[in-house]
C-alpha cells in the first residue's frame, strides 16, 4: 500500500510512450482478424473445463482493464475494485433470480449502477491522494460484503446464503454447449469493452487522463477540468469492472458475499501490476496470470501453495518490474531499433 512521496499524480508510475506512429491500415485489419481468430479458436479446440477456465480468465482480464483505467491511466490508486465487481455481479443476479430477466438486459443496468457508484466514489477521491485514497477504496472493498449481507436488504441479496442463477443457453438453436456459449458471450462483451477503451485512450480524452496523472498542475493550466476528468475516469473504470462482475455471476451461476471478499480487489491489483500498469494488452495477460498461476503454485507445492504464489509473484516483478506489457514494449523497441 505504498504510494511514495505522498503527492498526487506522482510521475513515478511508469511513463507510457504515446501510441506508436500510425501503422498502415491493412496491418491493423490483419491484426484485428488474427486476434479475432485467436479469441474464437478455443471454442473448437478446448474441452469444456478448460473453456470455463478461459472464460474466467477473460472476465478477470476485463475487470483488470477497468482498474487500469483509473489507476494505470489516471494515476488514482484503487484497492477497492472488488466492490464494483461485486455490485455488478449482484445486479445481474438480483435481476435474473428475482425478476426473471434474461442475461443481456441486465448488462446495461449493472453497467449504469456501477458507473453511478464509481462516480460517487470519485468525489472524495478528488480530495484524497496516495495512501488516503488507497484506504478509501480499500474500505469500500471491506464494506461491500458486509452491506450485501445486511438484514435490511437480505430479501434481495439472499443474505449470507447468496443467490443462484442459470447460465444462458445458446440462442437461435446454435449448436453450442452452454460452456461454449458462455465463453463466446464473455469474449464478445470483453472484446467490445477493450475496443471502447482502446479508442478512448487514443483519443483526446485518453491523453487528458494521462496528462492529469503525469502532471496535474500543468494539465489544469492548459485548461483541462481535472475534477470532471477524474470522476469520469472513476465512473468508466467502475462500469467496466462491474460488467466483468455481471459476467462472472452468470459464469459461476452463484453469488455470495464470500465470493467478494477484499481478496478480489487484491487479485485485481496483482493482475494489473503483473500485466503492466496502463496497458490494454497487459490487462489481458493479468487476467490469465491471476487465474492460472495459483494453479501452477499448487502443482508445485500442496503444503503451502500461498507461499509459492507469493514467490512467483515477487520473482515475476523482479524480472519484469514494468509487467508483461513492459516486456512487450522492450521487444518492440528493439525490433524498431533494428529496423
Amino acid at each position, binding site marked *: *500500500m*505504498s*504510494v*511514495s*512521496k*505522498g*503527492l498526487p499524480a*506522482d510521475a*513515478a*508510475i*511508469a511513463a507510457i510512450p504515446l501510441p506508436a506512429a500510425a501503422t498502415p491500415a491493412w496491418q491493423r485489419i490483419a491484426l484485428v482478424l488474427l486476434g479475432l481468430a485467436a479469441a474464437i479458436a478455443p471454442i473448437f479446440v478446448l474441452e469444456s473445463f478448460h473453456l470455463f477456465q478461459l472464460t474466467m480468465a477473460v472476465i478477470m482480464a476485463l475487470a483488470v482493464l477497468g482498474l487500469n483505467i483509473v*489507476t494505470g491511466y489516471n494515476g488514482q*490508486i484503487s484497492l477497492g475494485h472488488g466492490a464494483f465487481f461485486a455490485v455488478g455481479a449482484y445486479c445481474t443476479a438480483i435481476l435474473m433470480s428475482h425478476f426473471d430477466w434474461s442475461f443481456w438486459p441486465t448488462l446495461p443496468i449493472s453497467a449504469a449502477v456501477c458507473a453511478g457508484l464509481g462516480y460517487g466514489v470519485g468525489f*472524495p477521491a478528488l*480530495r*484524497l*491522494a496516495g*495512501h*488516503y485514497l*488507497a*484506504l*478509501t477504496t*480499500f*474500505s469500500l472493498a*471491506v*464494506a461491500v460484503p*458486509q*452491506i450485501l*449481507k*445486511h*438484514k435490511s436488504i437480505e430479501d434481495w441479496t439472499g443474505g449470507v446464503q447468496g443467490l443462484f442463477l442459470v447460465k444462458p443457453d445458446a440462442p437461435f438453436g446454435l449448436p453450442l454447449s452452454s460452456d461454449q456459449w458462455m465463453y463466446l458471450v464473455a469474449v464478445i462483451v470483453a472484446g467490445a469493452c477493450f475496443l471502447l477503451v482502446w479508442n478512448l485512450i487514443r483519443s483526446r480524452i485518453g491523453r487528458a487522463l494521462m496528462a492529469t496523472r503525469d502532471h496535474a*498542475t*500543468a494539465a489544469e493550466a492548459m485548461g483541462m477540468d481535472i475534477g470532471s476528468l477524474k470522476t469520469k475516469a472513476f465512473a468508466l473504470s467502475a462500469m467496466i469492472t462491474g460488467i466483468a462482475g455481471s459476467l462472472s455471476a452468470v459464469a459461476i451461476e452463484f453469488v455470495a458475499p464470500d465470493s467478494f471478499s477484499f481478496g478480489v480487489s*487484491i487479485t485485481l*491489483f*496483482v493482475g*494489473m*501490476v*503483473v500485466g503492466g*500498469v496502463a496497458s490494454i494488452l497487459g490487462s489481458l495477460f493479468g487476467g490469465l496470470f491471476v487465474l492460472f498461476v495459483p494453479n501452477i503454485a499448487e502443482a508445485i507445492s500442496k*503444503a*503451502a*501453495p*500461498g*507461499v509459492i*504464489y*507469493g*514467490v512467483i*509473484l*515477487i520473482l515475476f*516483478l*523482479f524480472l519484469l*518490474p*514494468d*509487467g508483461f506489457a513492459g516486456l512487450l514494449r522492450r521487444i518492440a523497441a528493439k525490433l524498431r531499433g533494428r529496423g
Partner: protein
Amino acid sequence: MDGLAHQIVAGIATGGIYASVALAIVMIYQATHHVNFAQGEMATLSCFIAWSMVQAGLPYWVAFFGTIVVSFAIGVVVERILIRPVANAPVLTMVGVFIGLLLIVGNATGWIFGYTTKVFPSPFTSDGPLLGGLVSAHELGSTVVTLTVLTLVWAFFRFTKLGLAMRAAAYNPRSSRLVGIRVGWMLALGWGLAAAIGAVAGMMVAPVVFLDPTMMLGILLYAFAGALLGGIDNPMGAVLGGFAVGVLENLAGAYVVGTELKLTVALAIIIGVLVVRPSGLFGRVVFSRV
C-alpha cells in the same frame, strides 16, 4: 449511561491495539515512505518466534528482547533481498511486491507453526479485574509500553543524527546521497526498526486477541485507518488516531447502526474526516512546487 461508559472504556482498550500497530506503520513510513502491506503478517511471525522462545523455557523478557533483535534482523534482510531489487521500479510494482511478501509470510507462518489458537503470555498480571473487568492489567501495561515506544521513536528521530539521516534518506534520497548519507543502509535500518516495533506491537496484542496466524488480518486495516486519521507522518497522531478508531467503532456499533455495519460506519466517518482534512487530523500539509 453505564453502558456508554463501558463502551468507551472497551473502545479505548481495543484502540490501544490499533494504536500500537498504527505506530509501527507510521514508523516505516517515516523511514522509507512506504506503507508495508505485510506489516501485520511480519508482526505475527515475530509473535510466533517469541512464543517458541517462551515454549523453549526462556524467561518472558529474554524472549521479548530476543524477538525484537531477531525481528530487526528479519526486517533488514527483507529489505536487502526483496525490496532493494525493485527500489527503482514503479510504485505500483512495489505494492505488488508487498502483496507477494504478505502471501509468503502469512502462509508460511501457518505452515510452520500450525493454526490452532495459542496462548501468548503477558508480563503484566494482577489479582483481580480492573475497572469492572473491562480493562486488564495487561491492557494498562501494554499502553505504557506503546507510549514508551512512542517516546523513544520520537526522540530517536528528533534528537539523533541517525534519525535525522534516516528521515532525510526517505524524504529526498538524491540530496541525501550528495551529503554523504548511505541511503541504502538507512532504508534497511528503517525496515529493521519497523519490524522491531511491529514485533513489540504484536507481542502486546497477542495476549488479548490470542495468537494464531490470522491474528493481524483485521487489525491492520483498523490500524491503517488510525494512522491515516492521525496523519501518516505524525507518530503521536497515529496513536491518538488508533484510540479514536477503537472508540468510534464501538459507539457506532452500539448506538448507531448495530454491530453488522460498525466497521463500515467507522470507515465512512474516517473518510468523511479525511475529505475535510486530507492530511489527517495532525498531519502536515505538504505543498509541492510545480
